Every structure is written in C-alpha cells, then in structure tokens.
C-alpha cells in the first residue's frame, strides 16, 4: 500500500506548486491511475514515491514505512519502474536489461537467468529468440514489453509506471493493455500508473485519480468517474462520449433480460462480454435483443437496448 499524505512540491523556477497538499491512498494489489493534463503534477507525484523527487512537505509511506527511512537506491530497487521512453540500456542484451535489478540486489547468476527467462515468457516474448537481442533490434512494442519485464524482475510489490505504453501504435497498445491486465490479475501488484489517456485509465485502473494544477479533483472507480464526474473539468476531461466508455466497463450480466426476449435471434454473446460488445452486435444485426450464453453454452438471458438503458438509469453505489 502506498499512502501519500498532504504532500506539496514546488520547483525552483515556477511560481505555482507542481503538487499542492495532495493526499491519496493506493490500496495493496490495486491499480491506481493518475490522470490529468500535462503539468498537472501527476508525474511529479509518482516520482516522489521512489524519491526521484523529494517533496517539500508531507509524507509518503509504503506499507506503513516512510520512504525517507530508506536510502533512495535501496528503495528504488524494491519498486518497479517503467517509463514511456522505456530507456533500455542500448549496450546490453535484452536478458542483461531484464536482469539488471536482480544483479544490483546481488542475486546469484543462475537465479537471475532463470528469472529473466521466466519474465520474458510472462510479457509474451519468446525467451530463446529474444534474450540475446539488443534494444535496437526490437520494435516499439517489444521494447515496452522488455521495459515492463525489467520493472517486474526483482518481483517488487510496487510498480510505478509513467505512460509505459505511450509510444506505440494503438493496436499494439491495446494488446499490451490486455496483457498487462492478465499479468496484473495473477500478480496483484500495487501499481501507481500515470497517463493522460482516459481510455487507458478506464481500461487499466481499479481507481482513477483525476488531477489538475497539482491537486486531486476526483478519486473514484472508473465507472463512477464516468457516471458522476465531480465537476466541469472532469466532465470535459473524460469526454462527451463518457457514457459509451462506461459500456465497456460493465459486463452483459449487469443488464440481463429474460431469455424469451432473444427468441428467434440466432445470435448470442458470452456472459463475459461487455455491454459495449453486446451493443455492437445488436447494432450490426439490427436485432432488438440478443441472447447471452454462459461458458457452457447455455442461454442465461438476453440483452437489448432497453435493458442497457435500464442499467444506465440505475444509480451506481
């Protein structure tokens, strides 16, 4: 768990503080996304956790211990760090890049190499093919995977990620998002994630912290940020089609109608699909309702435009 309490930071050459009296809790095992326009202090906030930036005021604790109790290097070796530029070491192979933090932590060689292969596998890169490559031989997406593998190498409980999937094409980014979610669902790291992309925040975050001018404007679940933006600023930041974004957050099972409604329509979606996928199918087919199947293929209900509207009418808890 990361706990940021009343933290402020002003840079020497700027009148306004970069971060002003900010408090935020990142619960253990959750992904908290810091989002906001450029200069809102989100990166500064993240960089104060591993002491790349020292706050002027306030305290930051990790698992109850003040980060200032540790030497910065010792602290950072136990916090995974991935950035947009990736910053792989160009003179080292992929394997050397991934093994760098375990090396700093004085793991023995055999353990480092086993761990390196394991991680390449985890981020979806064939270890045999990739371990000996140099960074310049990688595509943008591959480099970012290696960057994530490097951040995870020493199995840190905490991850700081500053737009780690920023510099790739939308298709690759989507794929990296899906894989990140898959990895996170098994590893359950405590993640502080910085982005300015609301779609990314909605897709990856358990909670979203919207920042503006160094302060916290709203801190809530993605669905609540979309449904009840705290003010005009958040509303405009999440965008006019925020209702459509909400669709991808809710599973079809939350808008289930009777099985009978889908009678005569041969088409179904799986119960794990989102409302967004269901609505897309409905629009494609021009159907009024489509069936919903569970994992065994049994019809468990139906989804229609009406049930979706009904779901959106219900207040969120």
């Amino acid at each position, binding site marked *: 768990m990361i706990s940021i309490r009343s933290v402020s930071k002003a840079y020497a050459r700027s009148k306004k503080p970069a971060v002003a009296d900010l408090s935020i809790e990142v619960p253990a095992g959750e992904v908290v996304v810091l989002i906001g326009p450029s200069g809102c202090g989100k990166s500064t906030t993240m960089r104060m956790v591993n002491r790349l930036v020292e706050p002027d005021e306030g305290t930051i604790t990790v698992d109850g211990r003040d980060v200032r109790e540790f030497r910065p290097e010792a602290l950072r070796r136990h916090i995974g760090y991935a950035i947009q530029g990736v*910053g792989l070491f160009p003179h080292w192979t992929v394997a050397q890049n991934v093994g760098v933090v375990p090396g700093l932590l004085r793991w023995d060689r055999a353990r480092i190499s086993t761990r390196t292969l394991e991680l390449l596998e985890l981020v979806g890169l064939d270890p045999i093919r990739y371990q000996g490559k*140099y960074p310049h031989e990688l595509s943008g997406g591959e480099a970012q995977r290696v960057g994530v593998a*490097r951040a995870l190498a020493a199995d840190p409980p905490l991850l700081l990620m500053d737009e780690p999937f920023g510099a790739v094409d939308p298709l690759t980014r989507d794929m990296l998002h899906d894989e990140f979610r898959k990895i996170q669902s098994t590893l359950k790291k405590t993640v502080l994630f910085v982005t300015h992309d609301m779609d990314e925040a909605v897709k990856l975050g358990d909670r979203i912290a919207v920042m503006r001018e160094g302060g916290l404007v709203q801190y809530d679940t993605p669905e609540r940020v979309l449904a009840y933006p705290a003010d005009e600023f958040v509303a405009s930041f999440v965008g006019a089609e925020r209702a459509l974004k909400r669709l991808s957050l809710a599973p079809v099972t939350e808008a289930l109608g009777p099985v009978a409604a889908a009678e005569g329509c041969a088409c179904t979606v799986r119960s794990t699909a989102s409302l967004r996928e269901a609505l897309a199918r409905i629009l494609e087919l021009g159907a009024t309702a489509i069936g919903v199947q569970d994992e065994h293929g049994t019809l468990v209900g139906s989804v229609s435009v009406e049930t979706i509207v009904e779901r959106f009418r219900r207040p969120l808890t």
Partner: protein
Amino acid sequence: MRTIRHILAPVIALGVYLALASATPLWRATLGALFPNETRILYPDVTPLGLVGQHLELVLISSAISITVGLALGIFVTRPAGADFRDVVTDLSNIGQTFPPVAVFTLAVPLLGFGVQPTVVALALYGVLPVLRNTISGLTDVSADVLESATGIGMRPTERLRRVELPLAAPVIVAGIRISVIVNVATATLGAIAGAGGFGAPIINGLVNLAPAVTLEGALLAAGLALVFDALLGGIERTLTMQRDATA
C-alpha cells in the same frame, strides 16, 4: 574477427616502426643516398631508437596526464555537483588551446626551467582540451530516458557512470584521446627547445647546422610515430564504435 584486425594491424605497424627505428645503419645508408653531398647524415648524439625512447617518454607521460585530467574534469562537470563549473572549465581550456605551442614552451622554460619536466607539463596542459571536450560531449549525449531509467531502477550515481554512461560515451572519448595524443606527438618535437630531447633535437640540430638529412631523420621518425599512434587509437575507437553501434 574484425575486432582482432582493428587491433592487430596497428600492433604490427608498431613493431615494424620500432624495427626500422633500431636499424641505425639502414638510416645512414638511406639518408646518405638521398643527400650524397652532405657530411652530416645522422644526429650525432643519440641513435634513432634512442630518440624514439626520449620522444615516447615525453608523449606517454604527458598524454597520461592529459587523459587523466581531461577525463576527470569531464566527468566532474557533467555531475550535478560540478555542473556550475562546466562553462568555466571549457572556456579556460579553449583559451589555453589558442596559445601557440611555441609560445607555451618559451613561457614554460623561465617558469619551470630546462629539461623533461617543463616540457611534460606544457604538453600535458596542451593535450587536455580534446579529451575534456569529447568526454563532456560523449557523456551529455547519453539519452535522458536511459539515465532516468538507470536512476529509477536503483543504480547509484557511480554505478550509473561506470556501467551505463562511460561505456556509451567510450567511442567519443577515445576519439578525443586519439586527437590529443597525435597532436602531442607532433608538439613534443618543440620540447627540444627546452632541452627535453626527442625528435625535435635532430630537427633543430639540422636546421641550425644546415644539415637537411638530420632534420629529415627527426621528421620521418615523428611522422612514423604519429601514424602508429593514430592507427592504434583509431583501431580501439573503431572497435568501440562497432560494439556500441552493434548495440545502439
């Protein structure tokens, strides 16, 4: 394979150079044939190989100092603690470079006396700039993302310097060392003015006594040594560049 060739060829060149330098009769015969009417053919006091020894002493000691000082200063002014000194240091060393070497030697003699010592000091000062300049530019060219991630994953500043910054800057730094050493080989001939010996001794002796063969002896030896050093350091530079570009 190519790495070996880059290093092996210059080493062979060095061997050939030393072998030729030690063949005093060959020098006498060749220069005698070129200047059949001259009575003074070779520098009288020291053999060609002896001159090589004197010259190498001047070059190796002064270059070692230039490299050490240039590297140390370059590293210092690219650290946060030394950043304030960066402009001062480069300005001073640029100004130092604008003094003609002859003037530096003439000024060094009354200050430091005659002999090897003042020559080494003057040469060392003169050779700092290329090393310093390239060290600074090599280190500042390392990408900000690479530095950020090195720090962010928990490298200490010294680990970052040793394992990331210096290896990535190495080809540029070696290019600076190469320039410094080559210039040094040539400039060291002026050491003879201060009585430090070396290839300048036959050059000046020949000029004073109107004996072109003797001047040519010194000039040939100096040119040969400059070529050998150029090849050696060029080989190292190419090897490092190849390694970095194979990887950058």
